């Protein structure tokens, strides 16, 4: 139940652009920033860059000018595989009717104390 993430019009699905294209045919990169050690990387935004190295440099300049990060990931947007938002209801639905998967489903007598 995955669907293809379509590239934006004019977007190369390749990691590097076609040399014949105008410079701004650069691929789109998604930027993830880890704010500090111990936290996970969080999506910060996206940018165009000719390759991964320049994408990283631009991401540093755009998204971490005020100590917002200690680590950056850049991922070609075209390589991201996403669930279908149209199908979200059926795709995520089964979890809702299985309350026994949650700890609060079970009754523990007060005398037992915290468990």
């Amino acid at each position, binding site marked *: 139940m995955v669907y293809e993430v379509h590239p*934006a*019009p*004019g*977007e190369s699905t390749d*990691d*590097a*652009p076609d*040399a014949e*294209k*105008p*410079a*701004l*045919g*650069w691929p*789109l990169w998604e930027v993830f920033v880890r704010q500090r050690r111990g936290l996970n990387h969080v999506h910060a*935004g*996206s*940018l*165009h*860059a*000719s*390759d991964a190295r*320049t994408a990283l440099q631009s991401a540093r*300049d*755009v998204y971490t*000018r005020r100590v917002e990060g200690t680590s950056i990931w850049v991922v070609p947007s075209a390589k991201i595989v996403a669930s279908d938002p149209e199908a979200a209801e059926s795709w995520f639905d089964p979890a809702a009717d299985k309350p026994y998967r949650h700890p609060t489903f079970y009754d523990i007598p007060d005398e037992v104390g915290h468990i």
Partner: protein
Amino acid sequence: MAKVQDEAGHGLYLYAAAETLGVTRDDLMNRLHSGRQKYSSIFNYPTPTWADMGAIGWLVDGAAIVNQLMLTRCSYGPYARAMIKICKEESFHQRQGYEIMITLSRGTEEQRAMAQDALDRWWWPSLMMFGPHDVDSPHTEQSMAWNIKRQTNDELRQEFVDMAVRQCDYLGLTIPDPDLVWNEDREHYDFGPIDWDEFWVVAKGNGPMNRECIDRKLAAWSEGAWVREASTAHAEKRRARVEVA
């Protein structure tokens, strides 16, 4: 430099948000360069003195924040998220600008006059930043219906005036509007009529700096062409080398 980097970043966030709707960056740049894309009219006014740095930060960035704070609650996620980042950074610009105005207004007679002159020139253009009156705004009704905008142009303009008057009192400067007066009943300041003829002249591309603004953008674009080409060529070369290896 810090402000220039921020502003370039704001442009980038907004272009990225626009691209999520399916338009390409190339197309957006072409539209801007060929005069088919509107941009904020405020950038078509000249900045002759240092005091303009203060007045622009305080009033122009201040007006932008009022508008953008509202847009952080916009119904379109990519736009709203961009606005959150932008507001944080604009706040630095506004405070820096107001501090410059404090320094000038507490300075020599000449510095005080510079501050007043900058205020005189930037006050009305700042009020125009909120756009036409609600009754004349072609997009407001649609934008409000879709929750792109949560407050109308006139509501935001009033909010800005009320705030700026108090800040101006502290500076001891005079807002160039003889009709500006506190209205007890409304609990807001009343202010004089905006020169909409000037607004439309500037909005339609005939302001004092429109031509120079676009020419400068075009020059920067063509002078930067070699950097873009070199970056593309370098990336291509590295990719070819990886493929061989």
